[in-house]
């Protein structure tokens, strides 16, 4: 657990970067600090490992006051990941990862073995061990940055916009892998970002800071979207928050419609005969996993992967209402594809069915709450 006890940072010129911050980052959870530039989120993060010293207040890690600890020693016990990875260009990937073990005086063999283990852990081949950072892509460098932070297995990790310098596709991938990794490791993480979507996606709790380093609201993502405490938070959380809030609600069991399916290589005549008057036919592979939709009227010759319409998203039976609604809205056939946990095709739903489900969930929630307490 990391606890900010009325922590302030004021610069000699009178600028207040952080003003009396009170908050707790619980053990084993991801706490995201988010806010506009100048809100003191990075300053707050850096005060935890004392790269910036607070002007007043204390920061506790479990029951230890960080100001009483030797700074370098404190830092070796805290993993740190920054934007652009900040890898040492003159050291190999393995040496970069083994930095803290080296500082802690591990023997070479053990440090190297640990580096190789972590390379695999973050999804990179061990053949990268002897390359230099400049030989890696931005996303790969960032993975090495994460591996380096994990090297000495610190209980606490600080992450300063670690994924903001990579392209959106890679960022999404890194975020997913980060969540999977955290699922295994259960570190106490403080994560800084300016991207509210990233905060909502990654945070177990999200702290929204306003300019001048004041805490505006700290809450679980669903609560932040559903009940912003004031206009600042509401504005910052942004538009579509009703829709995005659906991302935190499990989809209920909905009646799924069966679908005529086709395979790659089927002839156009076969497809048309099976589809009847339906303009779109779902194409699945041998394992009955959906591949995409094919336009029944326009298909000529045989069904090939080139003619597939791939715009539709796929929802899982154990996914969220948001996944389900999005699958229906993005499907060219207007029927959203739903798959079982193993990825096999389960059936389709229509948007109005999902909306009905949302309506009844909300009605049930309202009925469960005594009148008057519904707002905030």
């Amino acid at each position, binding site marked *: 657990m990391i606890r900010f006890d009325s922590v302030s940072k004021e610069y000699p010129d009178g600028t207040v970067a952080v003003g009396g911050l009170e908050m707790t980052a619980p053990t084993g959870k991801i706490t995201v600090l988010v806010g506009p530039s100048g809100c003191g989120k990075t300053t707050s993060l850096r005060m935890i490992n004392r790269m910036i010293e607070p002007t007043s207040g204390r920061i506790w890690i479990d029951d230890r006051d960080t100001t009483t600890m030797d700074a370098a020693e404190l*830092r070796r016990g805290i993993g740190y990941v*920054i934007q652009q990875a900040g890898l040492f260009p003159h050291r190999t990937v393995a040496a970069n990862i083994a930095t803290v073990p080296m500082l802690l005086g591990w023997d070479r063999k053990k440090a190297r073995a640990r580096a190789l283990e972590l390379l695999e852990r973050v999804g990179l081949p061990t053949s990268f061990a002897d390359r230099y950072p400049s*030989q890696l892509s931005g996303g790969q460098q960032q993975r090495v940055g994460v591996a380096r932070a994990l090297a000495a297995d610190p209980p606490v990790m600080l992450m300063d916009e670690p994924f903001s310098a990579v392209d959106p596709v890679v960022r999404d991938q890194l975020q997913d892998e980060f969540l999977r990794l955290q699922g295994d490791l259960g570190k106490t993480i403080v994560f800084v970002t300016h991207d509210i979507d990233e905060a909502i996606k990654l945070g177990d709790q999200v702290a929204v800071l306003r300019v001048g380093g004041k805490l505006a609201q700290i809450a679980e993502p669903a609560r932040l979207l559903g009940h912003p405490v004031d206009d600042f938070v509401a504005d910052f959380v942004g538009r579509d928050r009703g829709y995005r809030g659906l991302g935190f609600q499990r989809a209920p069991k909905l009646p799924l419609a069966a679908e005529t399916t086709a395979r790659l290589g089927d002839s156009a005549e076969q497809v048309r005969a099976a589809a009847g008057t339906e303009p779109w036919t779902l194409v699945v592979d041998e394992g009955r996993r959906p591949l995409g939709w094919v336009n029944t009227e326009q298909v000529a010759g045989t069904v090939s992967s080139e003619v597939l319409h791939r715009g539709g998203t796929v929802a899982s039976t154990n996914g969220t209402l948001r996944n389900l609604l999005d699958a229906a809205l993005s499907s060219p056939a207007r029927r959203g594809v739903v798959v079982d946990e193993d990825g096999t095709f389960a059936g389709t739903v229509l948007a109005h069915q999902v909306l009905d489900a949302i309506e009844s969930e909300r009605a049930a929630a309202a009925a469960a709450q005594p009148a008057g307490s519904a707002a905030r």
Partner: protein
Amino acid sequence: MSWSIDHLPAVLSLIGRHVYLAGLPLLLGLLIAVPLGWLARRYRVLYPLLIAGTGLLYTIPSLALFILMPIFIGTRILDPVNVVVAMTIYTVALLVRTVADGLGAVPDSVNQAATAMGFGRVRRLFMVELPLAVPVISAGLRVAAVSNVSIVSVAAIIGVPQLGSLFTDGFRRNFMEPILVGVIACVLLALVFDLAIIAGTRLITPWQRTRRAA
């Protein structure tokens, strides 16, 4: 040509002296310039002082420095130590700025990462900052090497033998060959110093070679 062949052992010995008088100050100067360059980076107030101050040293005429040296360090007038110390001063003059700029060129993100990983100040300097400054420092060292090889020949006037002695000798006897040999030897020596520094730099910066290989 007959002069050269007759005097080959003598010329070789002069080359040896020249290497010593120009090379040793290069190493000593580097050793002194590193902490000074670091101080200039570390304490902003010192930067202009150190850079301008050491830069000014380079403007002292070499002959004057060679002659005045015994007064400052209490050596005898013909002592080669005078030349070594004077050349070290020139090397420092050239290298302090280079070291400071080299350290300054280390990316901020790298320095921050080093601090956050728990490097102490000294360890960070030797394990992160200096290795990354090597390419810049090496460029400065190459300039200093060529400059040293050239300047040190002036010491022949105060009677410290090295390749410069061939110039004074040839001039006194109005005889071109030793002068020519001296010039060619100086140029070759400067080239050898330069190549040695390039080779050494390549050896200790394997990461530079992969720069654009990806």
